[in-house]
């Protein structure tokens, strides 16, 4: 009888631990401020949850939706843990980082990563009529037709993920304009990985 009770208690405690869907063993969630309100970034807690959205698809036409390289030039590629750390850092007053969703608005409006800003890759192209305004706002300075990116924040760029070139194109455009590669971080997993992990979408 005593053994049965111990076994039941053990199983119960195990199931309680097993029921939690944490980000890492040490990290359950992060809390950020979005539009003056607190927002918790965590994983969906329902262990039976499955994706039914666009991100459950395995196959898309390529081109345009082709598999992206792991690295773009010398730009550092990051994963979810690093991204979450940066999102947490972005909450600090002295942070100098910007998380950019490079997808066109129709994709972005279906859900994005909290604390990100939408800046479609097309607007970062050399021919874009908005480019000057955007770069100036970011803190870049133009002199003799060349841009100096020294004072811009570190830019973390993402798009739909491993099958989407929108972030790749945005990075290529920035680098072509003279942005140092160490001012850019590439979250290659993008919305695909963010969704597959059940992380909070805004």
């Amino acid at each position, binding site marked *: 009888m005593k053994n049965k009770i111990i076994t039941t208690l053990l199983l119960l405690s195990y199931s309680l631990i097993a029921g939690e869907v944490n980000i890492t063993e040490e990290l359950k969630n992060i809390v950020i401020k979005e539009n003056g309100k607190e927002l918790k970034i965590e994983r969906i807690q329902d262990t039976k949850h499955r994706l039914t959205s666009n991100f459950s698809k395995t196959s898309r036409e390529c081109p345009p939706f082709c598999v992206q390289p792991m690295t773009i030039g010398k730009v550092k590629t990051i994963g979810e843990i690093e991204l979450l750390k940066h999102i947490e850092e972005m909450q600090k007053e002295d942070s100098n980082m910007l998380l950019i969703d490079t997808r066109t*608005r129709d994709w972005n409006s*279906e859900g994005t990563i909290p604390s990100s800003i939408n800046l479609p890759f097309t607007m970062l192209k050399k021919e874009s009529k908005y480019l000057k305004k955007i770069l100036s706002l970011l803190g870049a300075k133009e002199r003799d037709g060349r841009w100096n990116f020294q004072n811009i924040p570190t830019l973390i760029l993402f798009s739909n993920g491993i099958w989407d070139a929108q972030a790749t194109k945005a990075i290529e455009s920035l680098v072509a304009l003279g942005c140092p590669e160490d001012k850019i971080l590439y979250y290659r997993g993008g919305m695909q990985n963010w969704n597959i992990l059940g992380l909070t979408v805004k």
Partner: protein
Amino acid sequence: MVLKKIIILVFLGVTFVNANGNLMEGLTNIVDKAEDKKAEDKKVLNYAFKQRMRTQWIARDILLVSMDFDASHYQNEAIKNANAFNENFYKLIESKADIEKAEKLYPNFPKKVNELNITWSKFYESVKKISKDKKDKESVKFIVENNIKLLDDISYIFTHFINSYQSSDKLEASMAHIKSMLYTQVGKPRLYVNRMVKNKLSLEKNIAVKESKKSIQEDIEKMDQLMKALKDGDKELELNGTEDRKILEKLSVSQSLWEEVKVLIQKKKLKKEEWSILIQKNDDFIEAQTEVVKLTLASNDN
């Protein structure tokens, strides 16, 4: 001293938050402005998009009037659709910037718009006349003989407008192409059904018998292929199909209405009450498929 430090730190913090907030706000404003322009462009395309369906709808209603089939109702319907066509058409041709944009790629574009303008003016006049006098045979004849030309002309404008809006960016153009194929195809069943019913009416009135029969047969085949393609995908039509539950539900409503329409269209001769059913099912189909169009435009199911 400590208090002073705290005040300075708080001030610096607020300044930073404001600076960061300003940056985010500034960037968002720029993107919003660019998106507003895109939305306007999309509206222009939508104007052209609906016009194809209206050409056949107007012709169908004019034939119903000429057969004295609930004439006053269809006189009103015809003029209502003609007014809508006219309003949208002038929005399109008064937009000089859009025409110039298309002209850069297609030098003949303004000439085609002028041609369409002439055909449409006569067409519109005929509809106006019939809306006042249901026995105006000349006007009926003009509409019967010219509705397909009007449809072809508006289709030309529509296709070339879409092409002129294509982005110079290869990736964006490629992504937009997938969507424009879907948007173009998802609206087409409305055109096909309107055209089939109109041709069925032409047969009833012994007008262009051979052409009408041929067109009906072709449209039935196109409809069967397209309705299946919207659901399951089709390489030839460049459609991927959909898994969106809401779209699938609405598509199944359209599909069952299409099956009912098809049975009646394929019947050799229709009784008066069957005509009433066919006209009603035609209208129900337009309504149902318009729901599919709306859901498709709102979805991002690539």
